[in-house]
């Protein structure tokens, strides 16, 4: 999405090439596999969500953890504050073919833009680099869009929670702002 992520990908590729036929290529593959494991069931994450502190879970697993301790919602890995509203669902490339996980029980929260203060408190908990990959464009623009607190205009997101007419009203404003920001970005870049 953002330019940062592409440059990171390029870096990753070169570093892998640098290692070449080193004997630890297999180990690296293995650790990459572990990266996609849910921190609760230790299996490959299903209906994956990520906390603001960057920890990956199956949504059903995390949901059950939050249900088990409703008055102390903390990340099961790093104990940072966590909540149903502050997790980001991950949609892989093939996810369209699958059943919408939010129709399942328990429903997975929809992707959304968080309010600015939430956004910044999140920086306290760990690697900030993670947040960059979710922003649209560069950092200051991501800040502008998030100040308006609109639902993210995800094409595959069904109307969920918010009234339809309000969402339409918001969307038109969002697109206007996105257009302005895009022009500004082009001028600066």
């Amino acid at each position: 999405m953002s330019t940062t992520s592409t440059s990171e990908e390029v870096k990753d590729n070169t570093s892998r090439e640098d290692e070449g036929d080193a004997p630890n290529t297999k180990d690296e593959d293995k650790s990459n596999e572990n990266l996609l494991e849910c921190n609760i069931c230790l299996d490959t994450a299903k209906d994956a969500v990520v906390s603001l502190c960057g920890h990956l879970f199956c949504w059903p697993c995390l949901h059950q953890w939050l249900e088990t301790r409703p008055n102390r919602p903390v990340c099961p890995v790093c104990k940072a504050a966590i909540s149903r509203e502050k997790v980001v669902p991950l949609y892989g490339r093939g996810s369209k073919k699958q059943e919408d996980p939010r129709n399942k029980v328990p429903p997975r929260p929809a992707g959304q833009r968080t309010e600015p203060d939430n956004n910044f408190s999140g920086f306290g908990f760990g690697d900030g680099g993670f947040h960059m990959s979710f922003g649209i464009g560069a950092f200051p623009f991501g800040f502008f869009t998030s100040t308006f607190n609109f639902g993210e205009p995800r094409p595959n997101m069904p109307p969920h929670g918010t009234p339809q007419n309000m969402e339409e009203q918001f969307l038109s404003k969002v697109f206007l702002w996105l257009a302005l920001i895009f022009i500004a970005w082009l001028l600066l870049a």
Partner: protein
Amino acid sequence: MANIAAQRIKREFKEVIKSEEVAKCAIKLELVDDNYTELRGEIAGPPDTAYEGGNFLLEIKVPETYPFNPPKVRFMTRIWHPNISSVTGAICLDILKDQWAAAMTLRTVLLSLQALLSAAEPDDPQDAVVARQYKENLEMFKLTARHWTNVYAGGPNVNPECDEKIKRLIDMGIEEHQARVALSSYNWDLERATEQLFS
């Protein structure tokens, strides 16, 4: 639900077996039943502590709601420690209670218990008698913990003085462990221990 518990323990078990702590003989994990609901843990007493050289067995019971709730762990090997009951082996450790987190594993539990042996917290005691001794007479506490480690956990430090006093009480018809508890509780004061036992 029980399914996720068993599956997770299976994975954890495989990981622990391969861990470097097992290679260094610092921790051990064994299955007690085939359902993965009960396990036997073992931790080595940390170096430079009164528990050095001892091996401590732990009873680990995995609840059906694991990993959303912590495993139930207790010392099977008798131990003299402020946060562990000298009677039942019950453990006072926050991560086994309200500070448990679902991403913790049996490996992290065993390592935390080992850390607890290195750093007691007498202000949050499980065994009030031991905690008081720890705070009022640390040298006496170390001597007693070392003696218990020698007798119950196979530690190397024999203390002939302690053994002699226990023998005196055994000669009076007191059971060995009961004699050891009385002497340990009264800072190895034979007179006061005798008084308490016969009162």
